[in-house]
Every structure is written in C-alpha cells, then in structure tokens.
C-alpha cells in the first residue's frame, strides 16, 4: 500500500513536471472519454435506466398493435399479465379555458395507470369500467398543462372542461415525472369502447399494448399465451384480417419496446465513440512512448538500484491511470457541456430523452472507463520501459533492440490510428451520401414558397357535415384572397407531416387473396387547387374542379403506381373504386404522379397498397363515416410563416371561435423534419469521425516527428555520404506512407464490416459503395501525407555537421 501511495505521489510530481505533455495527453483522453460519456449518458437514460415505475422488471410490452375490440378480448382472455392499451396520435381542442388550444392526448384503457403503478399528484386515476361508452367523460391532466392552463389550482379536480366539444370531468393530475407514452402528452382520456360502432371498434386505432406480468410469470410464458390469443383473435373480427397481421407477436420488456429502432442508432454511435477512444488511447500511448524514451536513464538507474521490471511497470501504469483520471474529469466536464447540444441534435421524438442526464451511473462508467483507458494506453509503454530499463542497466548493447521494438510499436499504433479513422470516416461518408440521396429525393411535390398550417375544429363541429364543408370552403376563399397569397388549398394529411390517413377500398376488377380483398389505401381528401399549388403533375385525365366539391359526382384520382398495381397495362381512367362498407362506386377521373407522403423513402407505410385522392365534399368520408375535421392548409405565398400565422389566426377566428391554428411552418421545414433522424445520426457520426481523423493525423505526425528527432544523426550521416534533401524527404515520407497505406488498407477492410452494421441506416447507397471507399482512401492518403511532410521537411533541414558533431 505504501508503495502504491509512493507511486501515486511520484506520478503526480512527474505529471506536474511535464505540464505540456500532461496537458496534451489529458486533452486527448478528455476528447475520447467525453464523447463516450455523453453517448453513454444517452444509452443509460434511454436503454438502461429502469422505468420510473414500481417493480419495472414486471412491465412488458406486446410487439403488435390491436384495435379496441381485439384488446378487450385480450384483456379478458390473457391470464399471465394484466394488460392495458393506449392510442397514439390523438389531439383534442381545449376550449373555454383561455384561447382555444390543441392538446396532445392519449386515450387509455382504464387499467393503464394501475398497470404502470403510476400515482396521481392530485385526485385519482381511472378505475375499472371508466373506458366503457357512456361512462368515459373523464380526463386526467399532465402536470405542465395543470400549471400552464389551470394555474396549478388544487381545486381543479372535479371541475369539467370541454375537450373536442365534449365535456369531461377532471379526475386527477399526474406528477411532472409521469410522461408516458411521451413527454408531449398533455391529457389522458379513457378509451371509448363502443362495440356498436363496428368500424371504430375493430378498425379504428391499432393500439400498443403494455402489461404487468403476474408474479412468477416469465416473458416466454406471456409470449406463448399472447401467441395463442393471436391465433384465435382472427375469428372475432367482423371481416377477414390478413394472416400476416401480428404474425410474429411477442412480449418484450416495456423498456426495450419503448425505444424501438433508437437502440440501433445509439449502439452505432456508442461504437463510433468507442473507436474514437481507441484512437485517443493509441495517440497517448505514442506520447507515453516518446516520454519513456527521454526517461530511459531514470529507468536504468532505478533498475540498477534493484527495481524489478514489474515495479517499474507499476510505477508507469500508475502515472497512466492518473493521467486518464485527469482526462476523465475533463471529459466529464466536456460531456456535461456537450450533452444539451447532443440532446438538441437528436430528433425531438427520441423516446425517454427526458431521462437523459449525467448521474451516478454515468459517473461510475466514466471512472471505470478512465481506469481501463489508463491501463490500455499505459500498458505497452510500461512494458517497453521496464524491459528497456533492464537492458540499460545490464549493458548498452540492448538499447538498439529496444529502440527497434519501440519503433515497431509506434508504427503499429500509428497504423492502427489511421485504420480506425478510415473506418469511421468511410462510415460517415456512407451516411453523408445516404443523407444526400435522401435529401435529393424528388418528393413528387413542390416545397418552395409554401407555408402550411393545421386547422382543427372539434370533431363534433364536423358532425354537421354541411357546416364543416362550408366552414372550410369559406376558409379557403378568404385565405386565397388575402394579401400576398397566390393560392390556397386543403389536404387532410400533409405529405411528410407525420400523420397517416387510411381507408380500405374495393377495386373494380381486382381479385385479391382473402387477406387483401379490400386493400388499405392512403386516403387524401383535398380541395381542387391542391395539385396545382403543390406542383403535383397530373399524368392523365383531369384534376378536381369546384363542381366536385358538392359530392354529386362520385370521383377519385389515383396515384400512378397504385393504378399500375391494380390495373397493370390498362387505362385507369373510368375504372371504379368503392370505400369499404359503402355501396356507391366512385369513378377514377385522373391519374396523378406519386408523392412521398409517408416519408422520403416510401409513398405509404408498408401495410398500405396505394394512394387515392377524393375531393373535399360531404362524401369525403374517413373510416367511421365522418368527414375529416382536421385539415392542413397549404398556402402559396412569399410571406414568412409568422405573417401567414397571424393572417390565419385572424381569418379563422372570424369564422369559428373553436378552431385552433397550429403547426404553422414552411413546407421546407416539414421536409427537414422528415429527415431529422438521419440528419442527426449523420451529423453525430460525422463529428466523431472528424475527431477520429484529427487524432489519427496527429498520431502519425507525432510518430514521424519522434522518429525524425531520433534519427537526426542517421539523417546527418546520410547527407554526409551524399544524400540529397530530396532523398531525405523521400526517406521520411516513405516511412509515413507505409503507416498510411497499411492503415488505410486495414481501415477499408474494417469499414466493409462496419458498413454491414450500418446497412439499415443507409438509403440510396450501397454499404460497399466504391466511390465512398475510394474517395475516403484518397483523401486520407493526401491528409496523412501532408501530416508526414512537416517532420519530413524538418528532416531535410538537418545539418550534417551538427548531427555528427558528437563524433
């Protein structure tokens, strides 16, 4: 113990003495550990931290989604766990509490809170039976909403509020840390279980299901039971469900169920920063080797005085770990500063982002990482020095050998640094090319000079179809004639807006399998100017006209790929489609270009078979037979979104006191938000690759500089024997080139492996894209050669007379 204290004391003195070395090494380590700490805090908060509910290990999630009817059957039949369901993507207008406001709300089954074990801050949660029709006029507020709209009034429980035109009684307020399923949730309302509304009950929301395992039940048992239920549930539907629906359903931990594909991206980023740390370690190991060379005499004396090689190695390892701990402290501070920027760089819908912060877990991780890092970069130099010390003490002949070993080791470290950098830069290059490809996808519509805004009157407002249609007709007319507006139109589901609108269709002449007799379509309800305003080309037939808005003529326009799919080689014009469970056939009057509506890679989600447009009219019914109440206005204008927002608020307020205007943004912003996830992954990965490349270049520069300084005499001699400056330049550059070429070759091979892991994140570029590989290899060659040129130039300046003077 005394020896260790002595080692620590001596180590601190040594690091203090070599302040320059300590600063550079600690900063390098801080970069590596800081990046790892920041990403680990994401991993810890999102993937590892237990959910903030009692007995979180019992909480599970079912991988499939179920409509109300199927969920209620599951609730009755499944015994291995208590289940609850919640529907996503709902919004409600809160009226008569200040200005009308659009709230994000989550309809939940009555057991939702009890399954999670969540307790309210005020009042109570829902009790059994409160999700049945006729007994469901309740609401629970989020802490934020309670503070902002109700001034944190503790008497709010029992009061009634109007949500979406329906009066609901506030039964409770949840605490600030309850944010399930999302921090955006502002109200929770009971599911409206109404078996008499067959469409809504069996085809409305397909809801995620969560559960709490009963004592003694395993995930496997729960999965087996849910699969058994799944095999039976088909028979309960009033129609035939596709066999593929929930085919691979299973029960997983709720924590992993919540994070979805974020896991892959986080693990990729963790891998990237792991490589950055390895490069930093190699860099510092090289610095340590250089420093060890200057301390050879000290080690020789220690050895001559009886220090065993192990003792010398321990001394040096103690110094390394001390150095790593200093780096870790700095890195922790860097991570603390960078974490908020990192969180801002991630898409806002990243799950559990609110759980991400630096806490004791991250601190323990950083401390452990520091010790491992210290040992990693200190081991080779320590072993090297202890061996050298022995030979130094025994005879001077061994020196040449140890220098040669050190040179080989340095070369290997520099080569490894280049290889790891190349791996990361190629991976970043693939992501950048993929992002470029995604950003340059033709979405099928025009985005310039278009501002969009959601208008959301209550559903009850649109129960009176004529009132709803008239309202929107007036909105369009007034906005269209507003100053600065060239055109205005409405669509129920804005392309790339993050919402989905679906409807099953019967298609004339199409005989699908039992599973697909009435394929599911993306249904867009639009006003006549929509296609022209959005620049969506009409390929054949005609666009909608104002005459179609009456609904007298039942007409549709179909997307080109959908027409081709269902009527291959035929003219779609004049064909007919029919909304499921309706009797009237609608005539196809136009074929329109495809639009990337779901995301930039897909026109529709995979479970949909096509896209169809209907004119906004009393006949433009969604599932449930109602006309869409929520519409998005698209406005062609040179004004910015602020001006348009103000104009819209004025216009809408004049037409209805209960229709909030929200999400006023340009179409360009809508597109940027659609690529936010790949943008953030690409940005973060590229940043880490940049750091890696800088560290790699510094590494190769450091090694060559050291070698040149050690070879001054040799270089001087070569010059005395006739070597020209060009020969010397070549000599040093050749050495650097060897490290670079081997490093790049290894890096390219490593990147091919890494790229396979990245494949799911790539779009429009192959994981083996030769352009990326070749251009990165060429660029890194140029950059490393530039790094080699500096020490090579210094070598050219060696004065043979001075180099040989000690003769």
């Amino acid at each position, binding site marked *: 113990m005394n020896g260790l204290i002595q080692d620590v004391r001596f180590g601190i003195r040594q690091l203090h003495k070599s302040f320059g070395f300590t600063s550079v090494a600690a900063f390098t380590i801080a970069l590596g550990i800081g990046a790892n700490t920041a990403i680990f805090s994401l991993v810890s908060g999102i993937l590892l931290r237990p959910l903030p509910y009692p007995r979180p290990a019992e909480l599970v999630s079912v991988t499939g989604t179920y409509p109300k009817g199927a969920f209620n059957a599951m609730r009755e039949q499944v015994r291995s766990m208590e289940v609850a369901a919640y529907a996503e993507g709902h919004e409600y207008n809160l009226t008569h509490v200040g200005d009308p406001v659009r709230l994000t709300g989550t309809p939940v089954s009555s057991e939702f809170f009890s399954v999670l074990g969540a307790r309210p801050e005020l009042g109570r949660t829902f009790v059994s039976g409160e999700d049945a029709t006729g007994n469901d006029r309740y609401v629970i507020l989020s802490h934020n909403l309670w503070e902002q709209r109700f001034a944190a009034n503790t008497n709010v429980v029992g009061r009634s509020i109007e949500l979406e035109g329906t009066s609901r009684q506030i039964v409770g307020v949840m605490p600030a840390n309850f944010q399930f399923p999302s921090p955006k949730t502002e109200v929770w309302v009971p599911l409206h279980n109404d078996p008499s509304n067959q469409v809504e009950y069996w085809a409305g929301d397909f809801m995620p299901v969560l559960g709490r395992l009963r004592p003694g039940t395993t995930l496997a048992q729960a999965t087996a039971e849910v699969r058994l239920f799944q095999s039976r549930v088909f028979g309960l539907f009033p129609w035939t469900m596709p066999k593929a629906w929930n085919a691979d359903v299973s029960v997983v931990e709720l924590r992993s169920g919540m994070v979805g594909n974020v896991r892959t991206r986080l693990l990729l980023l963790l891998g990237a920063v792991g490589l950055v740390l390895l490069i930093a370690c190699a860099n510092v190991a090289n610095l340590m080797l250089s420093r060890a060379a200057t301390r050879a005499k000290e080690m020789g004396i220690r050895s001559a005085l009886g220090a065993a090689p192990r003792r010398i190695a321990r001394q040096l390892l103690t110094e390394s770990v001390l150095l790593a701990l200093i780096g870790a402290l700095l890195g922790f501070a860097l991570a603390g500063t960078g974490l908020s920027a990192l969180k801002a760089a991630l898409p806002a819908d990243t799950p559990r982002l609110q759980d991400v912060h630096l806490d004791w877990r991250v601190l323990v991780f950083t401390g452990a990482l520091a010790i491992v890092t210290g040992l990693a970069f200190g081991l080779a130099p320590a072993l090297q020095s202890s061996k050298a010390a022995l030979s130094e003490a025994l005879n001077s*002949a061994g020196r*040449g050998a140890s220098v*040669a070993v050190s040179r080989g080791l340095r070369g290997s470290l520099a080569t490894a640094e280049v290889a790891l950098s190349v791996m990361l830069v190629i991976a970043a290059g693939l992501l950048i090319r993929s992002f470029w490809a995604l950003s340059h996808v033709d979405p099928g519509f025009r985005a310039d000079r278009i501002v969009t805004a959601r208008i959301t009157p209550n559903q009850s407002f649109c129960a009176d179809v004529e009132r709803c249609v008239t309202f929107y007709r007036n909105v369009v007319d007034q906005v269209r004639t507003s100053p600065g507006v060239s055109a205005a139109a409405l669509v129920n589901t804005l392309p790339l807006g993050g919402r989905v609108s679906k409807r099953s269709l019967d298609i004339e002449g199409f005989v699908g399998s039992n599973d697909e007799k009435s394929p599911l379509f993306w249904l867009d309800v639009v006003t006549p100017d929509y296609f022209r305003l959005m620049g969506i080309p009409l390929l054949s037939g005609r666009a909608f006209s104002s005459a179609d808005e009456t609904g007298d003529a039942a007409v549709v326009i179909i997307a080109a790929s959908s027409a081709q799919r269902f009527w291959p080689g035929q003219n779609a014009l004049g064909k007919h489609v029919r909304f499921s469970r309706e009797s009237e056939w609608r005539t196809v009057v136009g074929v329109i270009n495809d639009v990337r509506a779901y995301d930039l890679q897909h026109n529709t989600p995979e479970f949909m078979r096509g896209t169809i447009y209907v004119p906004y009219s009393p006949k433009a019914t969604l599932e449930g037979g109602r006309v869409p109440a929520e519409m998005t206005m698209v406005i062609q204008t040179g004004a910015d979104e602020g001006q348009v927002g103000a104009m819209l608020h004025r216009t809408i307020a004049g037409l209805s006191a209960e229709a909030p205007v929200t999400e006023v943004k340009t179409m360009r912003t809508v597109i940027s938000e659609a690529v936010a996830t790949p943008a953030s992954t690409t940005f973060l990965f590229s940043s880490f690759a940049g750091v890696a490349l800088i560290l790699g270049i510094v590494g190769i520069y450091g090694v060559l500089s050291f070698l040149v300084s050690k070879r001054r*005499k*040799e270089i001087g*001699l*070569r010059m*005395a*024997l*006739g*070597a*020209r400056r060009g*020969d010397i330049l070549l000599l040093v550059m050749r050495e650097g080139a060897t490290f670079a070429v081997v490093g790049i070759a290894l890096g390219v091979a490593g990147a091919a492996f890494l790229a396979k892991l990245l494949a799911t994140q790539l779009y429009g570029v192959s994981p083996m894209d030769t352009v990326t590989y070749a251009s990165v290899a060429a660029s890194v060659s140029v950059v490393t050669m530039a790094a080699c040129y500096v020490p090579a130039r210094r070598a050219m300046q060696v004065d*043979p*007379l001075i180099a*040989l003077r000690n*003769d």
Partner: protein
Amino acid sequence: MIELKNLERSYKTPAGQTWVLRRVNLEIREGEFITVMGPSGAGKSSLLNVLALLDDAWEGEYWFREEAVHQMKRKQRAELAKRNIGMVFQSYHLLDDLTVQENIDLPLSYKDIPRKERQSLVADTLDRFQIVAKKDLYPSQLSGGQQQLVGVARAVIHKPALLLADEPTGNLHSGQAKEIMELFRELNQQGTTIVQVTHSDANAAYGSRTIQLRDGWMVGDTANPSLSQPAEVSAS
C-alpha cells in the same frame, strides 16, 4: 589538388565570436598523405569538415582541382563532394539497421548508378577488404576494428580522389589501429590522397606530411619548415 587561401571559420556564441580556423593557407597535392595534428580544440576536425564540404559557413578561398569551391552554391558543393571525397569517422557512423553490405552500398545509392553496377562494386569492395563473410551481419555484431574496416570500405567504394579520416583509430586498440593504417597506406599508394586527423605519432608516421594546428592557426607544416607561429599565439 586543393588550395585553401586565407580560410577562416568562426561561430557566434553568447560570449562573442569564437574563431576555430584563422587565415589558413594550405596546398594539398595529388597523392599526398597528410596528417593534421594539434591539441584538442585546435581546429583539426573543423578543417576536415571544411575540406569535406560538410561545412559551408567559412570565409576565404577553397580551390579544388582548379575549381573555385568558394563560388559554388550549396548543391554544387554537395555534388563535388559526392564525386570526389570519402569520409571515415572516429565512431564509424554505421547505420545500425543496415547490414555490412547495405552500409557499404549507401554512398552508391545516392548516385545515379545502375543497380547491377552497384552490386558489382559492393561485391568487389567486400572482396577487397576481405569482409565477404560478414556482409550480412549488422554493425552491432562486429568488433570495433571490423566496424571501422566497413567504415573505410564505405568511404572508398565510390573511388574518391580524397579520403578524409577524423581520428580513424581513436576507438580501436593498437592492433586494429595498425591494420587500418596499413590499409590507408595501401590506398595512398594506389593513388588516393588522404588527409587524416590524429593525436597518434605512430599514425602520423604513415603520412608523408604533417600539419600542426593550434587555436585555429596553422603553426607547422613539414612541407614548409619556414611556416612560423603567428604573433598572437607566440605572444600568449
């Protein structure tokens, strides 16, 4: 072959200018074997470095076979040295990572000589110095005498007209020293002009002419008995 006229060399130090060679006038004829002697700090090695054209920062005139070296640019001087001069060092200065054969080949590698010709020259030299058996050994595997033998072989492989040797036997015992000096005599007899720096009278005896240096001044030359000590030196 060489004529130095009023050649001077000094260094700037914090204490002022320090002279290491003062007004040196020296003529070296083809085929001579000159020994430069003098106490430590007399300027012997400095003179040798100037003759070897390793040092550029001197003043005065340096003529090499009628060519005005003092008017040449650095590159031209380097070319001249490469063609005509060979150097032997006290501590051999062999490259540790190269074998005997590769060390000997080193000066040739910096000339535009075809590879085959170089191989042939190296083989001849190894044979001539009787070190064929050692050609694949590294310097650390040789004795001091053997290392210096390689050093001499390397210095003469490109058949220089002038061989400069700075304390060539300084690190050798007397037996090895004798062998090296015999080798120098043989080279001299074959036509190589040699200038050696030494403290050893025995080594000096191999030469045909001895020059004495003291405090940078040339104070003695057996070929010019009338050369007298300068006033400053004699006064001190």
